[in-house]
């Protein structure tokens, strides 16, 4: 009798169910990723008349996406790898990509959820409403931006094995993004502004803000999109190349 390999659809469905359940059980940690985005929406409301709604909403979403990619994704991968959870999955007749695809699908769902939460709070509290096309394009740019931070998270778990070190590192990088990226926008220096604009913080913020007003999408936005994709590809390639499934 020829041994048959389980059907890919069954495997993916099963993995997704388990990974979504795990995410749901960790919902308290998930809610924490929303804290800073909501603080931005609450405290930056006063700036909306000067900067426009998309500026505030885009900063809020970027911070949420960074939290997902770094704090959420990296930490969960580092922790599960250290416990040997991946090794057990890998001796099953399933391909490595299906394990990762399921994990990443959960993160993409998180990206959409955080974006939706910002839309809702932005609409009800900050009174920022977008056109239907604006919402749609922003979901797309949020996924693109989110993928960049997931790749960055992948790079960190590719380089660092110890889960505590991963946790400390992602917190540091998160802090750098807040101080350098978010705060850097308010430094009164053209050089700093330029650096921030083309950093992994700024390009994502740019595509989000332009995505909210698709009619204003310009050359700069297209370049920011390409640069974002470039960052994502570089980080993903290195992150996958360095990645080891076990910590031993």
């Amino acid at each position, binding site marked *: 009798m020829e041994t048959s390999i389980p059907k890919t659809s069954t495997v993916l469905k099963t993995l997704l*169910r388990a990974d979504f359940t*795990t995410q749901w059980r960790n919902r308290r940690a998930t809610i924490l990723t929303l804290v800073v985005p909501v603080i931005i929406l609450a405290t930056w409301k006063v700036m909306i008349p000067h900067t426009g709604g998309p500026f505030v909403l885009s900063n809020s979403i970027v911070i949420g996406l960074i939290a997902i990619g770094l704090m959420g994704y990296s930490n969960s991968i580092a922790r599960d790898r250290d*416990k*040997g959870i991946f090794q057990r999955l890998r001796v099953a007749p399933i391909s490595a990509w299906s394990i990762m695809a399921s994990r990443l699908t959960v993160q993409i769902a998180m990206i959409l959820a955080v974006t939706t939460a910002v839309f809702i709070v932005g609409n009800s509290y900050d009174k920022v409403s977008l056109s239907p096309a604006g919402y749609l394009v922003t979901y797309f740019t949020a996924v693109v931006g989110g993928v960049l931070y997931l790749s960055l998270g992948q790079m960190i778990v590719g380089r660092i094995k110890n889960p505590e070190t991963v946790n400390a590192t992602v917190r540091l990088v998160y802090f750098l993004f807040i101080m350098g990226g978010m705060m850097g926008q308010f430094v009164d220096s053209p050089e700093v502004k330029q650096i921030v604009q083309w950093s992994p913080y700024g390009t994502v913020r740019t595509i989000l803000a332009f995505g909210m007003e698709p009619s204003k999408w310009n050359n700069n936005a297209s370049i920011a999109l390409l640069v974002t994709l470039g960052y994502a590809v570089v980080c993903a390639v290195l992150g996958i190349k360095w990645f080891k499934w076990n910590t031993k």
Partner: protein
Amino acid sequence: MREDNILTVDDLSVSYGKFNAVQNVSFSVRRGEIFGLLGPNGAGKTSTLSAVEGLLKPQGGTILVDGNDAVAKPLHARASLGVQLQSTSFQTELYVIEVLRLYAGIYGVPMRKADLLGILREINLEDQAMKKFGELSGGQQQRVSLVIATIHNPKLVLLDEPTTGLDPQSRRQLWERIEAIRDKGHAVLITTHSMEEAESVCDRIAIIDHGRVIAIDTPQAMVDKHCNDPEVIAVSRRGRVTLEDVFIALTGKAVRG
């Protein structure tokens, strides 16, 4: 055409960097057989199993699982394998029943709740179905891990020190389960440090040390063959030669680092 061997390991070498953990190891496991892999700490047992499971890429040699090359056709090879790893964990946030459902699904035998509870009943953990896996005791986790190893009725079950941490009742139950697998015509490859276990359940054993196989035979034949060796007699106690005496004589008295 059906081969008699469910597993053939031929001239296997595994290294970690420059360190050769497994060197030119050859053995085979027949259908309907319980095969024991014995050896001191660090002998290379887990490394050998890891190569069979496809977790490690061998430096040399070939591994055939039910006729499928473990390197060239890893998914086919793994589909015939049930595995319990020496150190592993399941998603600690999932309930026990959810862990079971996950593994049933990824081994291609999706199960409904009643089936899953039935499996837990077999290992007397039905009451713990809605506990998180991380909340089980060590021995209970081990029992779940073992039942998962056979959830898809595999042709070959690999067990790496499965009875470590089990109470005597669970250990006996495990032996019975292993024997039931054999009686179905399937095979078990088990590592253990318990010579009593090897003698009572294994049909054949291989002793491996420093990454090399130093003997393969039935437990009884191994004792018979070596019972008059002076080294064996020197380490035997109470005037009776046991498998443990032979093991110690063959692998040396020194405790491994």
